């Protein structure tokens, strides 16, 4: 696998890749085994605004106060040729009880996904149960990329009882004696 990147100011047109090769032969073999690949045509298309879009995974549940979200993935099918930076900020303005980390995510070649987290302090006022993050794109290749903004998420109070608050632990796997075609497992969770 390999990738070809075209800098933002690459003139549109047809280019060719020449291939060199270096063979390490099997023991005893005395002749080369392969032709190098034929010259490979690369068609460069001039810059297209918003050609590729970043996607953001949606949180399945509200974030309880006093916790940090799971890492939230931002991904794009094609990486920038040089760099494109996502800047994350709270749409409603800075809030000391709500932290986004990190607030900038820089994508460079060979980089198709990055993650960020949202930390809600236990002092957060849960009467405001929805918040959103605004994205802006900077960097060399910013025009080529777009992102749907804002990104909404919900915040909830801490669960009242410990069983909802703390992760359960498996006390027994309940494995039955398997036979040739099936096995049954009945885990017990505390």
């Amino acid at each position, binding site marked *: *696998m*390999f990738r*070809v990147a075209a800098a933002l100011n*690459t003139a549109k047109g047809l280019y060719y890749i*020449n291939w060199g090769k270096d063979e390490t032969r099997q023991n005893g073999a005395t002749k080369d085994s392969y*032709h*190098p690949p034929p010259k490979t045509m690369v068609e460069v298309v001039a810059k297209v605004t918003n050609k590729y879009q970043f996607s953001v995974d949606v949180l399945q549940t509200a974030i309880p106060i006093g916790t940090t979200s799971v890492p939230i993935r931002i991904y794009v099918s094609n*990486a920038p*040729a040089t760099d494109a930076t996502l800047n994350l900020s709270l749409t409603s303005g800075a809030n000391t009880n709500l932290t986004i980390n990190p607030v900038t995510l820089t994508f460079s070649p060979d980089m198709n996904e990055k993650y960020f987290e949202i930390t809600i302090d236990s002092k957060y006022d849960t009467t405001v149960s929805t918040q959103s993050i605004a994205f802006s794109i900077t960097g060399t290749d910013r025009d*080529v990329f777009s992102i749907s903004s804002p990104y909404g998420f919900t915040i909830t109070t801490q669960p009242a009882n410990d069983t909802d608050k703390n992760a359960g632990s498996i006390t027994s796997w309940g494995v039955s004696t398997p036979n040739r075609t099936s096995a049954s497992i009945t885990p017990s969770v505390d």
Partner: protein
Amino acid sequence: MNTITMDAPTVQRAMAATDIITWTIKSVGNPEYGQARTANAFMDFDATDADVFTIFTDWTRKFEVFLYDKSTTVLGYTARSYGVLNSAYLGFDYNTDRLDVNSYNPQNMSSRIQVWAGSQTRDIAISTHGVNNPMGLMKLILSPATNPRTPDSGNLSYTSKWQDYQFN
């Protein structure tokens, strides 16, 4: 491999046992790829031999063949073929196995790589030719470079982050 027929010469020339016909074919390198050739069912003036054209998978483009008489009495060629009539072709086999990049076919330029300025392609496969051709080496390292005939001013870059262009 080629059959060339000629019109009857207007001046008789008796070939002697000492006459030597020399075919000189110059500057045929180890080609990267060849042209496919098939004989048409009709109206094909230069490629009618369906038997010969199945022998090799790849052929050169057509060219003209001249037969020169080097004797002192007759100067110039005594027979020739034409681009539209009795053209010559060289068929050849690959003497080693082939490698494909993105399944690119140089004969018709299908499966070329497309890249939009300011971005990078997705992963592009480099593979041996056909699923029944596993890698027959301890290791193979490929190295791409932009062809000097299509200079890119340093704007194109090639990366192979995970495999580093290696087969092993």
